[in-house]
């Protein structure tokens, strides 16, 4: 944290503060500078841990924003009513700016990218699509793979409809969507559909929709050994044979 240029700038600012005009500000920037930097470091670390846990469990970002921003704004309002304490409001918000510094940003970004990358979610074929909330994605894909789906393709989208009709309350509805596309064989449809439906909690309002459509033709690479295996006749008793 001491390597962050913004912290160094705060220390320089402390040297030009008049102790008679802003005693609390002077004390924080001079006598308690190390303690203040330590508290900033703990705060940034705590935020990074919370962000990491959020990525892992797929929690929504909005509750975090509401639970941190609203008390902060309330505290700012209360501080502004005290003539001596109001002088440290600028320092308090500037300390938050340290998270956008040239040292902290690369560290936090790479941490986020690493966490997301490692932990983040006959007959004719039928394709299943799902448009779901961000948090449910990994559970749905895992459920589909457990039941036999080979893979999934995911792309991002923006949803509209209910949100626009709710006015201000629409802010509580997540706009970002993820669309999952899975191809399954005809005889797997019901099982995969049901598993994905349950895993994604799609019976809950706002969790998304899912639909199945018939495909005329599918083409992909099939290894030659599998083609040869499929071409071989099945040896043994077949149900219905009497011989």
């Amino acid at each position, binding site marked *: 944290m001491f390597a962050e240029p913004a912290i160094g700038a705060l220390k320089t600012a402390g040297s030009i503060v008049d102790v008679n005009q802003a005693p609390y500000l002077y004390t924080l920037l001079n006598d308690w500078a190390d303690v203040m930097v330590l508290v900033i470091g703990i705060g940034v670390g705590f935020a990074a841990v919370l962000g990491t846990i959020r990525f892992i469990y797929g929690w929504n970002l909005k509750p975090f924003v509401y639970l941190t921003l609203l008390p902060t704004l309330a505290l700012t309002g209360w501080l502004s009513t005290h003539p001596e304490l109001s002088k440290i409001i600028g320092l308090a918000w500037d300390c938050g700016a340290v998270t956008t510094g040239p040292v902290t940003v690369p560290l936090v970004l790479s941490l986020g990218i690493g966490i997301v*990358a*490692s932990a983040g979610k006959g007959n004719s*074929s039928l*394709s299943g699509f799902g448009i779901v909330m961000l948090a449910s994605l990994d559970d749905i*894909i895992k459920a589909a*793979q457990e039941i036999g789906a*080979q*893979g*999934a*393709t*995911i*792309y991002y989208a923006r949803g509209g409809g209910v949100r626009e009709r709710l006015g201000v309350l629409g802010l509580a509805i997540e706009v970002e969507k993820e669309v999952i*596309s899975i*191809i399954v064989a005809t005889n797997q449809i019901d099982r995969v559909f049901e598993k994905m439906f349950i895993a994604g909690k799609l019976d809950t309002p706002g969790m998304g929709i899912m639909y199945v*459509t*018939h*495909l*005329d*033709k*599918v*083409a*992909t*690479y099939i*290894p030659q050994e599998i083609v040869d295996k499929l071409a071989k006749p099945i040896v043994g008793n077949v149900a219905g044979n009497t011989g």
Partner: protein
Amino acid sequence: MELAAQKLITCIFPKGIALDVAKKLKENYDLMSVDIKSARGIGKVTPLGYRGIGSQSEKEILTAIVPEELSNEIFDYIYHEADVNRPHGGLMYIYPLISATRYIVPDLPEEE
């Protein structure tokens, strides 16, 4: 507005292929309704899985609305142009549309 029998071809390619295919579709078949989206693929075997990067890889989704009478020909054309018949070459499928508008570029007179 013309509503003709059309089909939707959807192709999931590795990153970097879709744009070339889209250009060739425009040049050779005069297709105007070709879209490309970025996506990520999750599977049991991915190109970089041996590096421990995980089961995800970057993909591009190309969708094209094509006339029904040309659907098989265009499907085969894309299959060969994108070289889908190789490991991790991608996946493509086609299904019919109940109705879709066909956009035709208007015939504009040459400027003198």
